[in-house]
């Protein structure tokens, strides 16, 4: 058993690629060894900016000899076939063995593969690993790059160390040959470092100022930075991303603390932190009060002779120049009001089919106002604890207040401050994207929203508006903070609803892994806000409203055209006026037609949101089939109510009554399906009318038809019902209105209780009553009864969607 060391040395590997490269090296090494039949145990993989290293412990010296068998054609097969088989397996005909396979003499080739020295296998594996290595980006270099076929690597590959035990595994890849020699730290060590074996690799490199273990370097950065901060009486703002990045940029990390001019602290702390982090890869520090301090920690790659004084000073200057730029942006941006910044949004295209960002802002402003005016977003701190919050955070469904069926508290209809709230929401929405055209957000796009909030506050806008601008992108992902302030909720929800619906309206819906406009994220954000805040929003109403806005814009153009016509009208003849009007109307007509089509997308959007809901609720243990069952009714577009219904349903289905009722339902549904029984409607189809269904759809006739059918069906009660039949009729007569009124009152547990009361009668009915009676009148009545039962159940949910 021998240890194997492989080091691939190159010019500086980007820090962000090193983790992937380690995984790739391990994967390819295992692949090659598997293929060669070498058993690989524990692997250690390390990386520094200048090398990737792999140590495989306890490799065998050689692989075992194996004999492989291949089954060939039967004896007596044509020569061609037999010879082909021999060629394929590299044996001659006289080496073939004949064996009996199910009574048939069949040729077999036995191929003896001798064991091979692992050293030889490695010599073949290393070039294969290097050639197949997948980098996110790779390049050619040097004289060999006269051909585009030359080796590609992330940066020029400069050396290979390959040692099995203490012996070099000889190999060569595109002119780079293996050996035992590597290089130490770029500046702290000159000359070669000769490695003896896998065991002294890390030791010798350490002596040459290289910490080859990336995790050890990360710990040095983490602890060193923290220590540097605490020695200055500060605490480090931890940032694991920076730890890993700095560890990937250094072979000998030395964290150093420096100070910057206190005057820069006027700039928002997020800006300072981002400037330090993104541009310079520095940590920042906080003082005892948790305020950003005028200090940074950079990570040098050398232990400088002067203790790092010159390095700190140099870095301080660079940071000062960067912060001067940031302060310049901060001050410049504030010379223009957000309102004026917002005007520039007219020049930014939101999407080629959806106009400019200014157009979007206009829609969002109207929708945000609508959300308030409709009483969907109110000043009330919503919802009471144990209500909607549980719904969204997904505690056990049956335990949440709503889930257990208590009526959902309706928002206080008091509209005392509604007008003011609506104004604030509209104002915030109009300004929420203004920071996109500021210099600061141009420099740091990740500060969008946040900067708008700062600028709004600086110009003295109401806090509610500033907060809404700042937070309206939230929640960005699962687990992100969900807005609570009403103005923020209105703007955030309006923004996301607008994005989602507008892209759907123009046919840009996500498909597969393609979601370039992050519509799934918008959908999840919408659901989360609605559920966390317990907003009673009808998607249909909201989306129709959004759609209508588009219509208004088109008709707005018509109105505008009219005005133009009126101004000219004195000088025009009547025919000319008519021509003008016709022309304007027909110019807008194609838009109107196209727009009319988009309304058909609304159900798609609601379904998309329901799909997101299923995924979001999966972790909370809510069954997706139950969401389907409620959603399939087609009348539920209020998420809070839908989820309450689903929770009640889930609690019910998990009871014995529920399970049995489901079984009864399925049996009834099966019979109805088998008999193709469509209840009253189906009956009419057989009445011999020319187009009987037309009657059903005719609103004037509907009452007549209903009355007639009711009469027919009661009059058909032409036999004394059996007791079980009568019991079911009675139970339905009682349960159906009860379920309906409970649903109406959003008391879903009462609705479930009403359904539960059907369980015993339906079981008994199936037990005692023959549905397919010989007498047609009995059969018809009983099928009707089952249809009625099914309809009663459907008041609560479409049980056919429930699994199990």
């Amino acid at each position: 058993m021998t240890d194997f060391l492989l080091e691939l040395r190159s010019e500086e590997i980007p820090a962000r690629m090193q983790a992937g490269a380690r995984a790739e090296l391990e994967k390819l090494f295992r692949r090659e060894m598997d293929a060669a039949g070498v058993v690989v145990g524990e692997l250690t993989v390390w990386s520094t900016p200048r090398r990737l290293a792999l140590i495989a412990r306890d490799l065998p010296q050689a692989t075992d000899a194996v004999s492989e068998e291949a089954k060939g054609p039967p004896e007596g097969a044509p020569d061609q076939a037999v010879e082909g088989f021999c060629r394929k397996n590299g044996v001659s005909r006289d080496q073939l063995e004949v064996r009996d396979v199910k009574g048939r003499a069949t040729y077999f080739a036995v191929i003896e593969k001798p064991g091979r020295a692992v050293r030889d296998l490695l010599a073949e594996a290393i070039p294969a690993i290097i050639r197949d290595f997948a980098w996110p980006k790779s390049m050619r270099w040097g004289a060999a790059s006269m051909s585009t076929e030359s080796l590609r690597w992330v940066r020029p590959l400069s050396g290979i160390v390959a040692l099995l035990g203490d012996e070099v595994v000889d190999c060569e890849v595109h002119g780079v040959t293996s050996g035992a020699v590597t290089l130490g730290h770029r500046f702290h060590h000159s000359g070669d470092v000769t490695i003896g074996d896998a065991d002294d690799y890390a030791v010798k490199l350490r002596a040459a100022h290289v910490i080859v273990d990336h995790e050890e370097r990360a710990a040095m950065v983490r602890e060193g930075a923290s220590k540097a901060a605490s020695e200055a009486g500060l605490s480090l703002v931890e940032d694991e991303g920076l730890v890993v990045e700095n560890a990937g940029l250094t072979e000998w990390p030395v964290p150093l603390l420096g100070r910057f001019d206190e005057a820069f602290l006027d700039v928002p702390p997020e800006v300072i932190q981002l400037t330090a982090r993104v541009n310079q890869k520095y940590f920042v520090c906080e003082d005892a009060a948790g305020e950003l301090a005028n200090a940074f920690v950079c990570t040098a790659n050398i232990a400088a002779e002067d203790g790092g004084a010159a390095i700190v000073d140099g870095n301080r200057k660079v940071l000062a120049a960067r912060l001067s730029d940031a302060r310049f942006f901060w001050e410049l941006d504030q010379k223009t009001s957000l309102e004026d910044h917002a005007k520039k949004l007219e020049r930014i295209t939101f999407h080629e089919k959806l106009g400019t960002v200014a157009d979007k802002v206009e829609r969002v402003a109207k929708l945000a106002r609508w959300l308030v005016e409709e009483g969907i977003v109110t000043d009330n701190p919503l919802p009471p604890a144990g209500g909607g919050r549980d719904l969204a955070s997904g505690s056990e469904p049956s335990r949440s207040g709503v889930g257990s069926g208590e009526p959902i508290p309706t928002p206080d209809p008091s509209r005392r401050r509604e007008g003011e709230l609506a104004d604030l929401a509209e104002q915030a929405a109009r300004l929420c994207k203004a920071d996109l055209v500021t210099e600061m957000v141009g420099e740091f796009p990740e500060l969008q929203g946040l900067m708008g909030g700062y600028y709004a506050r600086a110009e003295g806008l109401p806090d509610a508006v500033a907060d809404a601008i700042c937070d309206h992108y939230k929640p960005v992902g699962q687990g992100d903070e969900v807005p609570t302030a009403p103005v923020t909720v209105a703007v955030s929800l309006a923004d996301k609803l607008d994005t989602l619906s507008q892209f759907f309206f123009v046919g840009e819906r996500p498909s597969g892994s393609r979601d370039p406009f992050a519509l799934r994220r918008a959908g999840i954000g919408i659901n989360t806000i609605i559920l966390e805040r317990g907003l009673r929003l009808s998607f249909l109403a909201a989306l129709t409203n959004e759609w209508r806005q588009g219509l208004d814009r088109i008709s707005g153009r018509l109105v505008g055209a009219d005005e133009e016509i009126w101004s000219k009208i004195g000088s025009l003849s009547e025919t000319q006026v008519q021509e003008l009007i016709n022309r304007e109307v027909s110019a807008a007509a194609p838009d109107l037609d196209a727009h009319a089509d988009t309304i058909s997308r609304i159900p798609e959007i609601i379904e998309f949101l329901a799909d997101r809901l299923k995924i979001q609720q999966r972790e909370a243990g809510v069954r997706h089939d139950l969401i389907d069952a409620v959603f399939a009714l087609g009348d539920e577009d209020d998420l809070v109510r839908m989820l309450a219904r689903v929770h009640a349903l889930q609690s019910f289905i998990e009871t014995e009554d529920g399970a049995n009722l489901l079984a009864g339902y399925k049996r009834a549904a099966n019979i109805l399906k088998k008999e193709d029984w469509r209840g009253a409607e189906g009956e009419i189809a057989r009445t011999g009318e020319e187009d009987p269904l037309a009657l059903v759809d005719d609103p004037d006739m509907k009452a007549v038809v209903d009355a007639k059918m009711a009469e027919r069906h009661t009059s058909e009660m032409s036999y004394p019902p059996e007791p079980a039949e009568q019991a079911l009729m009675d139970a339905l007569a009682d349960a159906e209105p009860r379920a309906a009124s409970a649903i109406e009152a959003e008391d879903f547990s009462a609705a479930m209780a009403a359904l539960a009361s059907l369980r015993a009668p339906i079981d008994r009915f199936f037990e005692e009553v023959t549905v397919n009676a010989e007498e047609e009148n009995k059969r018809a009545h009983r099928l009707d009864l089952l249809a009625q039962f099914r309809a009663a159940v459907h008041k609560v949910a479409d049980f056919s969607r429930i699994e199990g």
Partner: protein
Amino acid sequence: MQREPTKSFQDMILALHDFWSAQGCLILQPYDMRMGAGTFHTATTLRALGPEPWNAAFVQPCRRPTDGRYGENPNRLQHYYQYQVILKPSPPDIQDLYLQSLRVIGIDPLKHDIRFVEDDWESPTLGAWGLGWEVWCDGMEVTQFTYFQQMGGFDCKPVAGELTYGLERLAMYIQGVDNVYDLDFNGRGVSYGQVFLENEKQMSKWNFEVAETDALFDLFAKAEAECRNALANEVPIAAYEQAIEASHVFNLLQARGVISVQERASYMGRVRDLARSSCEAYAEKMAPEWAEKYPEWSL
């Protein structure tokens, strides 16, 4: 004569010339046209094409009209110098050579933290890209280091290594000066400000406020037409010069703020088209000659 690169801007440049000359580089002079970066010099772009070895070093004045600050910002200039080294094919010890050049101008890598930080380069205008780093000295980017992979839409065969030193930044660093105008230009008391401050003030004003935009639009159109004319007559180097001209005029129009967001993309597309067509035409014109000298080579 003893060079004093840590005390004099011009000595720093001369020290770099001495060093790269000793490495076998041609020491060229700046291209006599206004351009945004040393990469536009034909000694870089056009020479990066084709199979012939090419090693050259030169200073190139760069003009970035929108970076003008009327001489009021200590770090930003609308006119500054880059030092370009182009080594083709890229030698195996190119990083070491580069680090030696830093030592030559007085940067001690055991006192200062030198780092190669990922920074890939792409110029859609030139149809070019490469991989490499920005080289940091104590956190400051002092050099762009690139292995050209494509130029003018063609694979570089072989690959050239390009080093672009930001001379003012380096000098500020080496001289320990916080304001570019305080740099000692000659080691004998003439400051960078004495040479360039007035220039920055006037040129910033001209770039941002004065330049006659109708004339600029006209210049752009003329350069574009002349580029086409040169291409049609198979003189791609002349065409390339007109592409550089158009590129700079576009930058001036940008500084004047007369190009809208929508127009911007279209102008950039036009400049790109000129530059790429010129590079392509050059490569195609030279290809037979190259292939004759290097039979295994093809475009």
